[in-house]
């Protein structure tokens, strides 16, 4: 599956005075829990350990977010947020799969993050910024096994 990079607004700054937009590797995913499904944009982020979504998305999906096991998460600047983890299903294009994802009521500054655990271990990802595309290919069970065996 091939998704276009998204061009979104930003203010010109001292460092980038001629830049009034940014290109981001954001793709649409459908987050599914029981009989509810919501399609949301999420950043494909190889630097994220986990898939993280806002707590209010969990609430909209009728997930009892606060009951999930908690995990601290930190990023640049050292700010620590807390996420509560739940088993959900994600749909990317026509591919649906189970993910143990975090939901946080702290500000994450983005609609969602698709990280290493849950996303990158299910898909091979190619970021081709000059071609404006993010290519995601589902890993088959055999491919996963071969990767584990080091082939």
């Amino acid at each position: 599956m091939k998704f276009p990079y998204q061009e979104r607004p930003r203010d010109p700054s001292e460092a980038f005075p001629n830049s009034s937009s940014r290109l981001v590797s954001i793709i649409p995913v459908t987050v599914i829990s029981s009989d509810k499904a919501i399609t949301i944009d999420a950043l494909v982020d190889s630097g994220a350990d986990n898939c993280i979504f806002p707590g209010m998305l969990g609430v909209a999906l009728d997930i009892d977010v606060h009951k999930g096991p908690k995990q601290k998460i930190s990023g640049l600047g050292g700010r620590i947020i807390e996420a509560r983890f739940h088993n959900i299903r994600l749909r990317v294009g026509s591919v649906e799969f189970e993910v143990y994802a975090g939901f946080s009521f702290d500000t994450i500054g983005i609609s969602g993050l698709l990280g290493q655990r849950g996303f990158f271990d299910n898909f091979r990802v190619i970021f081709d910024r000059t071609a404006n595309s993010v290519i995601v290919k589902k890993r088959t069970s055999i491919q996963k096994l071969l990767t584990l065996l080091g082939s």
Partner: protein
Amino acid sequence: MQALKLTNLLKGYEDCWVALNSSRTKVLASGQTIKDILIKAKIQSSEQPIITYVSRFDSDYVG
């Protein structure tokens, strides 16, 4: 492939949650919570909206 150009569409929605139509040509609803914009979007259209958060314009993002 062309980048998906959302700069003009999202310009007025800094730091807001937005519901877009499936072809991303129209903002169906905007607000501060996902629940609110899902309700508002349902009034505007029967199609499943795409929910997105419009990040601040004055800072770049590092995940």
